[in-house]
């Protein structure tokens, strides 16, 4: 049976950096459980801003205001404590950012260490192996777990960051252009990985790359100048977009 409440729902979500201008304007959309939803749009359209609203990253910057509602399993996260929300909503950034002073092993477990959660040695080993296996990194790094994470290649570092986010067993994984700093082969690995991971976690991914959205996502959002122009099945959007602006973007006339 399908769940009635969507795992994540935007209701008239607005984000503004200054009083005069809104970076995200009245976005409403329901994200389905265990899907990959791509957020597309030209630079500056507010897609990263919308994504960062979901794990309350904007709370770090006092001048940014977030309005409307964002429901996680039916509860509005805007009224929750950031540290509670962020344990349930993981995030992977554009540039791979493994913690430079920690080993690969400790990077995977950093979520626990940072939250003061103690694990036994066996639990630690099991978590590290499971998470690194689920990002297909285990075979490559199992003999160098005590090396620093920064020794890995860019693609491996990004997979390590995904493993680090997965270790906390989040409901939703936010990805902010996770492959834009990677070469095509590393990108392909990550994309294959995401298709696997959607069984475990709901993924919301911001991408500049239309091909990537088409390859991996089942639903797509198209944003333009802060508005959500179109939201629907990726298949439909790419073949038969309803809005003229979406068509112009997808055919390369605007971008």
């Amino acid at each position: 049976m399908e769940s009635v409440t969507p795992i994540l729902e935007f209701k008239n979500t607005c984000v503004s950096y200054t009083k005069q201008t809104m970076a995200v304007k009245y976005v409403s959309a329901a994200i389905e459980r265990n899907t990959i939803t791509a957020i597309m749009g030209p630079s500056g359209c507010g897609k990263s801003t919308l994504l960062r609203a979901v794990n309350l990253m904007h709370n770090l910057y006092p001048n940014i205001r977030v309005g409307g509602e964002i429901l996680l399993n039916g509860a509005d996260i805007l009224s929750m404590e950031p540290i509670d929300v962020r344990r349930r909503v993981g995030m992977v950034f554009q540039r791979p950012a493994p913690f430079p002073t920690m080993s690969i092993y400790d990077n995977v477990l950093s979520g626990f260490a940072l939250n003061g959660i103690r694990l036994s040695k066996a639990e630690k080993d099991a978590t590290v192996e499971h998470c690194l296996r689920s990002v297909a990194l285990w075979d490559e790094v199992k003999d160098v777990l005590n090396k620093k994470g920064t020794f890995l290649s860019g693609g491996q570092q990004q997979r390590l960051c995904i493993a680090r986010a997965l270790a906390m067993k989040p409901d939703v994984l936010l990805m902010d252009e996770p492959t834009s700093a990677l070469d095509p082969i590393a990108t392909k690995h990550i994309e294959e990985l995401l298709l696997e991971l959607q069984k475990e976690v709901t993924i919301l991914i911001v991408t500049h790359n239309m091909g990537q959205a088409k390859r991996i996502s089942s639903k797509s959002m198209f944003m333009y100048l802060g508005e959500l122009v179109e939201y629907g099945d990726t298949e439909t959007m790419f073949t038969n977009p309803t809005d003229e602006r979406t068509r112009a973007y997808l055919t390369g006339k605007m971008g």
Partner: protein
Amino acid sequence: MNVKTKNRLFKDKVMLWGICLFAGLTAVPLLAILGEVLLRGYDQLSWSFFTEPTPTAYKAMKAIAAGEPIPGGIANGIIGTLIMLGMAIVVAVPVGILCGAYLAENSKRRFAQVVSYLTDLLQGTPSVIIGIITYIWVVVPMKGYSAIAGSVALCIMMLPLIIRSTEETLKILPASLKEAGLALGANSARVMLKVQLPAAFGGIFTGVLLAISRVIGETAPLMFTALGCSLIRWSIDKPISAVPLLIWEFFNDPNLQDLIWGASLFLLLFVLTLNVLSKYLAKKWNQ
């Protein structure tokens, strides 16, 4: 090659030589100082120079009259310097790092801006004034000169350097590092402690070493606080000696003047070693 091109290349060469010349000139004072101190001081360095306290003027006089080298050394100064430096470090390092972390994180707050400005002023305060203030604050209430008072003065002088280096190093860390930590659900104190400060360790450590090398040669503030002492002393509530204080005392005592250069050489080499070490470590951590 036409004349114009030749002309331009010639000007380029002149410029380059000029720059090299002046760059070389800046190294001259340091090399001259090092050479002078080495030349005059190297024959005073011996095992006893580091293990024995300052001789009395009478002993020195007798040795000079007999044509022998002056007995004794600067052990009292070395031990005093290390004790005061140690106490100053124990307080200044944690306080300075915490303050620097606060300033780096809250640079937009009014209070942080005021503290940051005051830190700059403290850094520019003449050391002799810090000495006299510490005299009023510590020596007078404690009714006597002491190693504690000396370490307070050194601590005040170290603080701004540690604060500044911590703040600057934290500020140049990529913002993604902090956000990545917070995105895992940690509170900002833990992210600071487990992610940001460890990542900034190289820069902070360099700052601490530079702070040490800055205050280790301070003489004026110690004159008001530690006073000096010709015995080897381990207690912290009594007057104590320090290497720069000894250099001043040797200078003022005609019988002990031969010891100036050995003490100077020791101090100079100590500071240079710290500087080289901090450069090396900074490089190593930046890789």
